[in-house]
């Protein structure tokens, strides 16, 4: 629990992407051609975030479970460091009908289950229709496959065309639905049928818990899973992408779990493991080690400070100018340099720099350079009536009635950088005269007590956005948390920023933003240039509106033993990991 | 009464000094004691509690706790070996084999978690060339001899299953099992009641007569001394104050302290309204008075007693006393 990262959106997605393979032939100088590479060695990845819950992925809630399964089971496609689509189980890219409603998917014809039978379109359609959409199995993320038609949620319609082709038909246009499709993995119909209708039996099915069905669908095959210790997969010689080049080149791939990040990093330093992520403080040390190579790569994760614009937050936060003034008072370079030690960049809007949809033009950069100005911030607040001029001429920010402003900042316990940022922000606000109480709470408490809301006095079940009148149980003014924007499908972020967005817990509402997100999901956005424009407008608008204070985009540090070859550093550097090898 | 010659002295204690070095100071528990034990006799060490008689007994075999105890002077000569200074290994060959010791507290002198048999036999196996079975056989015989019924069963018993008198007998058995020449018994009659006391004394008497053993019998009870002793050493404040044949001690005590002790004896022939006792308290061994240690309580104290230690005076060849009155 304590180590649960605070990054909400796309957490599962991002990890899947990291570990999936790709048809990529190394062209970098000095790298051997595929034929010369010998299969040898065991690749050990160190993790300290807790074990996976299940290999029966349809029941999994956590990203770790998906990442384990991903070693043995490819999705339909992934993308490289430049977000180019890399086909996996697909024979060719997904075709979208001109009206944007029908998606035609063609899978490879050389995919085999473990019993030798081919993987067919029927398996995919069965997985969707009979498992993911079913009532008996309660697939928790079925919402990804639903659309709203006449106020009702309905599932999309999958249909088999032939052995290798199937279609998915929507009733509403959603240009970025294709990225949901890329992540699809199948269950074998011939096994799953045995358990259909019996959730208990399905949960306990040995084939699914031992991944004994995955055939040639992944670079590795399941070998052993010792809970809280190690997940071991061994080289799959039949891997459909690797057969021809002899990949993958590791005998085994092991995920080794550690109790603390300190011991995990110590293990890399001692050479006991091959790869693990490095915390900012440790980077310089590891970069100085001869046997270690550290890659600093961008991520799509970012940290925000949400402003409560609901009835139980400080009334001032409802005003755009107040939010802007507060954002102006918080030094983003202070966060990226002093707390994250340079392994971050200031964020100003919701689309990360790594995304193909990123546009810098016109973005309002609060919190840096000219727009980091505490005096000006105080002046603005004073003008709005939130402050008193003191004897020495300086302004002390107060509530409208001149009283001391005491605000509540909530952050989840366990994330040290987030905690540091909370203290940093408190200090910045204190210099305006605003006192901030920091509440460090466990993750479920944060969600249940502060994020979830309901209309007082109603019988509503608490949800993340129960309408403009809803408020959370506990009073709060700021929540510091990790966010994420899918770099390929930023429209997914509508849940945060549209008036009725499912995760708009801060109660932000702006008709223009609603309209732009609607356009990004509309038929006209099928045209990528239109979508690019829409996103550029959205980025500008949100950077100015400050529904939340976008604080920083993070960079990750990944440390490898130096003898690992074939690595292409980047945002999704694991996409070709089946081609990595030991020197 | 037998007569003794110098030749059959089997143990000679000469000017023995055993001090305890504690944080509160030096406790001179035994501070210059001399006596000799003759073959086949029963020598009694008499005195009030705290006079150093038990420590003297323990010092013979160096069994006091060390640290803090240490022999700081004197010799204990047995078989031309000085037990006070010989190496531990040699001493261990004497302990139990040549000289046996029976401790005061019969109740706790036996190890509560070992069987009687084990405790008797382990000793024999160390000192005698016997197999376990032979040792066992001998132990059974000895126990029978000591008047213990169903001796075979008793070997498998634990101490808590025996009565007080039985434990006393077991202790005696244990001390006899290696046929020692000398037996030291520390207050064997104190913890038992009157009827058993007679039995115990009888037992020791038999040891002396039948086995020709030499006994050192430690007691505070002059009545017991009169019954069993041949000669007696009266101790006070860590010193031997009077040494004489028992008959002389009883009939003609020389030291005022001995006389005082005798007066404390309840005389059954007279009807007594109250028991006499020596006034005052025995001295604290860490703060001995100067001069004669008895002088604060002595009815016949003279000036010199306050300052000078009394020398040993010979009243007769067999009767010696440490008192200024006889100097």
């Amino acid at each position: 629990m304590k180590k649960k990262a605070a990054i909400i959106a796309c957490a599962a997605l991002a990890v899947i992407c990291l570990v999936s393979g790709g048809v990529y032939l190394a062209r970098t100088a000095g790298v051997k051609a595929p034929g010369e590479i010998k299969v040898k060695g065991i690749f050990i990845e160190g993790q300290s975030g807790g074990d996976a819950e299940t290999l029966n992925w349809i029941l999994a809630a956590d990203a770790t479970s998906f990442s384990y399964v991903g070693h043995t089971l490819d999705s339909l496609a992934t993308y490289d460091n430049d977000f180019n689509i890399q086909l996996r189980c697909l024979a060719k890219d997904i075709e979208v009908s001109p009206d944007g409603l029908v998606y035609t998917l063609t899978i490879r014809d050389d995919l085999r289950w473990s019993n030798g039978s081919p993987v067919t379109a029927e398996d995919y359609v069965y997985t969707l229709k009979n498992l993911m959409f079913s009532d008996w199995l309660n697939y928790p993320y079925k919402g990804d496959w639903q659309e709203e038609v006449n106020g009702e949620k309905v599932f999309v319609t999958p249909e088999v065309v032939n052995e290798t082709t199937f279609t998915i038909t929507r009733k509403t246009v959603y240009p970025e639905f294709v990225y949901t499709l890329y992540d699809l993995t199948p269950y074998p119909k011939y096994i799953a049928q045995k358990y259909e209708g019996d959730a208990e039996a399905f949960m306990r099915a040995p084939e699914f818990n031992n991944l004994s069905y995955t055939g040639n669908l992944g670079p590795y095959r399941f070998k052993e899973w010792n809970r809280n210790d190690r997940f071991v997969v061994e080289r799959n010689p039949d891997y459909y992408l690797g057969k021809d080049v002899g990949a993958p080149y590791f005998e085994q791939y092991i995920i080794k779990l550690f109790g603390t990040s300190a011991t995990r990093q110590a293990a890399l330093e001692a050479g006991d493991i091959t790869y693990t992520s490095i915390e900012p403080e440790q980077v310089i040390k590891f970069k100085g080690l001869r046997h270690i190579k550290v890659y600093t790569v961008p991520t799509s994760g970012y940290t925000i400070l949400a402003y409560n614009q609901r009835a139980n937050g400080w009334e001032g936060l409802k005003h755009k100018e107040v939010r802007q003034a507060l954002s102006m008072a918080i030094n983003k370079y202070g966060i990226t340099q002093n707390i994250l030690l340079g392994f971050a960049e200031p964020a100003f809007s919701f689309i990360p720099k790594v995304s193909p949809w990123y546009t810098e033009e016109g973005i309002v950069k609060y919190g840096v350079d000219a727009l980091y100005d505490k005096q000006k911030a105080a002046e603005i607040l004073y003008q709005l009536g939130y402050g008193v001029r003191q004897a020495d001429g300086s302004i002390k920010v107060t509530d409208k009635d001149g009283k001391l402003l005491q605000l509540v900042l909530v952050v989840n316990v366990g994330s040290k950088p987030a905690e540091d940022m909370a203290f940093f922000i408190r200090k910045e606000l204190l210099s305006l005269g605003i006192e901030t109480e920091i509440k460090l709470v466990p993750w479920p408490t944060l969600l249940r007590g502060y994020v979830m809301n309901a209309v007082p006095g109603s019988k509503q079940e608490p949800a993340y956005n129960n309408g403009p009148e809803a408020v959370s149980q506990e009073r709060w003014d700021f929540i510091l948390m990790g966010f994420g924007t899918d770099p390929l499908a930023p429209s997914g972020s509508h849940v945060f920023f549209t008036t009725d967005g499912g995760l708009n817990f801060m109660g932000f509402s702006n008709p223009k933003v609603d309209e732009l997100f609607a356009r990004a999901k509309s038929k006209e956005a099928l045209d990528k240039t239109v979508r690019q424009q829409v996103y550029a407008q959205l980025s500008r608008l949100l950077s100015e509106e400050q529904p939340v204070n976008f604080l920083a985009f993070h960079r990750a540090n990944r440390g490898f033993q130096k003898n690992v070859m074939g690595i292409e550093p980047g945002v999704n550097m694991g996409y070709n990991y089946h081609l990595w090898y030991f020197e | 009464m037998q007569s003794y010659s110098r030749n059959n002295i089997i143990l000679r204690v000469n000017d023995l000094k055993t001090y305890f070095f504690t944080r509160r100071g030096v406790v001179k528990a035994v501070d210059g004691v001399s006596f000799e034990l003759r073959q086949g006799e029963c020598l009694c060490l008499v005195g009030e509690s705290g006079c150093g008689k038990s420590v003297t007994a323990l010092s013979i075999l160096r069994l006091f706790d060390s640290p803090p105890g240490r022999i700081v002077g004197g010799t204990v000569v047995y078989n031309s070996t000085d037990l006070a200074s010989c190496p531990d290994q040699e001493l261990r060959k004497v302990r139990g084999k040549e000289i046996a010791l029976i401790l005061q507290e019969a109740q706790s002198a036996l190890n509560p978690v070992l069987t009687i048999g084990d405790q008797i036999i382990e000793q024999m196996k160390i000192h005698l060339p016997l197999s376990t079975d032979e040792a066992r056989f001998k132990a059974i015989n000895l126990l029978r001899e000591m008047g213990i019924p169903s001796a075979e069963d008793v070997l498998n018993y634990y101490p808590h299953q025996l009565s007080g008198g039985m434990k006393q007998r077991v202790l005696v058995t244990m001390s006899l099992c290696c046929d020692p020449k000398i037996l030291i018994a520390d207050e064997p009659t104190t913890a038992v009641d009157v009827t058993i006391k007679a039995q115990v004394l009888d037992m020791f008497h038999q040891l002396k007569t039948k086995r020709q053993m030499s006994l050192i019998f430690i007691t505070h009870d002059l009545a017991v001394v009169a019954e069993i002793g041949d000669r007696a050493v009266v101790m006070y404040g860590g010193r031997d104050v009077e040494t004489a044949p028992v008959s002389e001690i009883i009939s003609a005590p020389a030291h005022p302290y001995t006389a005082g002790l005798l007066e404390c004896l309840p005389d059954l022939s007279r009807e007594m309204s109250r028991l006499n006792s020596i006034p005052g308290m025995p001295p604290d061994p860490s703060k001995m008075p100067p001069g004669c240690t008895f002088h604060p309580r002595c009815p016949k104290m003279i000036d010199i007693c306050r300052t000078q230690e009394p020398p040993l005076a010979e009243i007769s060849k067999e009767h010696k006393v440490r008192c200024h009155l006889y100097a």
Partner: protein
Amino acid sequence: MNERKETAGKDRAAFHGGGFRLASYYWQRMARNRLAIFGLAFIIFLALVAIAGPFFTPDPTEVDFEAKNMPPVGFTITQSVYDIKTDQFITTRVSGTWKHPLGTDRKGRDMLAMIVSGARVSLQVGLLATGIAIIIGTIIGVMSAYLGGWIDNALMRFTDVMMTFPFFLLLVLIVFIFGPSLAFIVLAIGLTGWTGTARLVRSESLSLRTREFVMAAKALGASDGRVVFRHLIPNVISLIIVIATLSIPGVILAEAALSFIGLGDPTVPSWGIILEEGQHSLTTAWWVAVEPGIMLLLTVLAFNFLGDGLRDAFDPKSNV
């Protein structure tokens, strides 16, 4: 442990009335134990620091990210910030200053101030939780011994159940379920840690119950309450003092262990919390983990010394 104390208690003199003389007697006995005196001195020092220290040190919650990870006086380290544009590190050498004699943590908080306020928290946790445990344990122990019969039976069976319960697991379970606030941690430790006390107090009281002065008081018609409060409790107090002193280190360590696995109260800088923070940056800022670790060690050591000395002083059998 119970067995030994049970017998030890039997010889202990009753000491209501003349309490001062007895106290000074025990003090003399204890004063001979140099380690116990060191322990007592350290605890008094710590208490003074906890009470008065905050007036002399800066605010321990005051962050200063400009002065983060400063080493203690006399040490020099190298700090670095990564520059994305050049892919280089900008390194600076940082030496400890007297402004922060014990250095600063990753938030730039003054370690001395944190240690001082941590002393307050850890002592509070130790004393309060032990206090709760001792009070519950004493009440149950005395009631059990004095009332006897089925109440004794029921209470002791309940004690058995609680005693068999894996203590740390129960603690983690309770703190996880009800949330990691310091008040709750204290309460949880107190509510689970009383069993040993109850047992010892019961056996001690049982032996006292049949002693002459209690019998006499009863014969003179003293009420149950009077007997318990005037005669039983004062006579088990020495035992209670020893148990309390020896339980405090366990409580302090339990809180630190909870913090170590992430169940500490993050808003209150106890030593456990600082240590947990520090162990993430052992290789970059060792002092953040080492300083509270040493304080924890010394404090636990001091209580153990003192408790041991007290036990010897109260135990007539021991020859100090």
